[in-house]
């Protein structure tokens, strides 16, 4: 089926993510009382299409498909779905899909914007392996931040239900809020470590560019350092000052929303990432 390009596959995946999101509305309304295989299977189907899209792109480029914003975004999404599908093998955690699918659908629609998929080859002066490592680590870190935000959203939902004595709090299949908080914290720290490694691999890449004016003051680099400082602040607040509960959950969600809203803009403005 050559007429189906990798973008077509991804479009189909996003449609299935959308169906999963619609189905999730019913799960929310029912308060996650039942184990739910339907949503898991929908996300499994979407994951298959998503993987096919990435594989086709990867074989076409003959490298890890993270050469532009579209590819980086769908790679980050892919890590979120892969982690969900692994975790969802445990039936008690399958409902996580109801929280993940709206995020996936939103990012998927964003990734489909044509301007994100600008065709440009890698900079010839940069070593392909380091660039792939840099892009993969950055994508994985944003995937971890995304999952941390999903766990934080679950925490806020369940915490509110418990606080206001809603029956959903006790009938739902959600894990205890203390565990949700711990999961959100660990994912955030994992994302921060991956982001740090990703930025360091980017620094190695930059050493291969002879003209420092090409990257000095680059908006994406400045933004990335800003994001790193933002998450560093969250990590310090959590582990040094024991920040937790609602404030931590809101910070994790707010930080990821900030990343989602500004990621595209800074990428477009960056000559280094968008030559």
């Amino acid at each position, binding site marked *: 089926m050559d007429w189906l390009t990798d973008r077509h596959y991804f479009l189909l995946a996003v449609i299935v993510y959308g169906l999963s999101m619609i189905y999730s509305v019913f799960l929310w309304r029912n308060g996650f009382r039942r184990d739910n295989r339907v949503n898991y299977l929908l996300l499994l189907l979407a994951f298959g299409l998503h993987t096919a899209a990435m594989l086709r792109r990867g074989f076409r480029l003959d490298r890890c498909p993270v050469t532009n914003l579209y590819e980086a975004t769908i790679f980050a999404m892919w890590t979120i779905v892969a982690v969900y599908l692994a975790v969802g093998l445990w039936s008690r955690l399958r409902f996580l899909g109801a929280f993940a699918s709206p995020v996936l659908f939103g990012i998927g629609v964003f990734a489909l914007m044509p301007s994100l998929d600008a065709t440009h080859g890698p900079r010839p002066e940069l070593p392909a392996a380091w660039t792939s490592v840099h892009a993969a680590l950055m994508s994985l870190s944003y995937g971890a931040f995304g999952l941390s935000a999903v766990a934080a959203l679950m925490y806020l939902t*369940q915490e509110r239900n*418990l*606080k206001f*004595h809603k*029956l959903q*709090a*006790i*009938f739902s299949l*959600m*894990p*205890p*809020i*203390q*565990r949700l908080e*711990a999961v959100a914290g660990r994912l955030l720290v994992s994302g921060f470590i991956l982001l740090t490694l990703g930025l360091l691999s980017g620094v190695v890449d930059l050493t291969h560019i002879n003209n420092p004016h090409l990257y000095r003051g680059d908006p994406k680099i400045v933004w990335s350092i800003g994001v790193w400082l933002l998450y560093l602040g969250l990590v310090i607040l959590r582990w040094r000052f*024991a*920040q*937790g*509960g*609602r*404030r931590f959950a809101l910070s994790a969600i707010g930080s990821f929303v900030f990343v989602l809203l500004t990621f595209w803009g800074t990428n477009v403005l960056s000559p280094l990432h968008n030559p």
Partner: protein
Amino acid sequence: MPLVVLGLSHHSSPVTVRERFAFAEARVPAALQMLRDSGVADEAVILSTCNRVEIYAVTPREPPAAFTALREFLVTCHEYHDPLTDEIYALSEPQSVHHLFKVAAGLDSMVLGETEILGQLKKAYDLALQNGHTGGRLNKAFQRAFNVAKHIRTETNIQRGSVSVGSVAVELAEKIFSRLSDRDVMIIGAGDTSEKTARALLSRGARSILVSNRSHDKAVALANELGGRAVPFDAWAGEFANIDIVVSSTSAPHYILDRAKLDPLMKLRRNRPLLLIDIAVPRDIEPEVNFLEDVYLYNIDDLQAIAEDYLKQRKEEVARCEQIIREKAEALLSHTGRREPDGAVRPAFGRE
């Protein structure tokens, strides 16, 4: 030979009657032997719990004759001479098999869907089996009943959720804390419900119990019973930095814990959640404390509302369970080649 059931339960008789028909466990083998010697039953099991006394028998007689003999046996065995009206019920196939399956699944219990009865039924069956009072028919029927109970437990929500205040409190704690094994509980006021709640928390693994009561002696006695530690009543607030769950049930006419008192104590806890269960009437804890971050306050009405909702859910599941029981009973009866569609026979005994 049909399988019949004759007995009395909480549905048909008050405890004052049931207690007079109860069999002590030690007496059961002799009673079964007597029953078989009388010729009324080839196989028999006696189930005697606080809520029911039932004889399950495979009889060579026609059901009406068997019911008369079994009733006579029950009355004579306990020397019961008072008049009986509808207290004793009797069922023949297929209702007897339905009834056995319902009892095993907890559908006939006082607390709908409870599981304790299954253990009691297994024990009664084992006792009869070990003493050689069961045979092919009862063995098959009881084994199938245990399977049906398991099937119903896994396929329906009949046993889901908690229907008592103590177990709802445990469930709430499990929705807040990752595990109870490293959680410390404090009881303020050594009342009956708070003791039951504490026992429920301990049974689910809570690490330690502190007991505080106006009468320190009472606190010490309860703490010793629960394997915990007593705390003087004027010093309980000093423990708040370390505990995670508070169950309060004093008879104080005013709040013993309010927002102004709790706010500074929460700062010592470094964002650890605190579950407050206030089962006192009038209430012990000011409702305003629920507005503090990381504090979760539930009073007796909140707990009862949850328990009632669970019960409502269980009742909604009854139809599904009965459908399963009908199918399984039908399969068992057709397999054993016996089926008497006329159902229950109630020769002057009444029924549930």
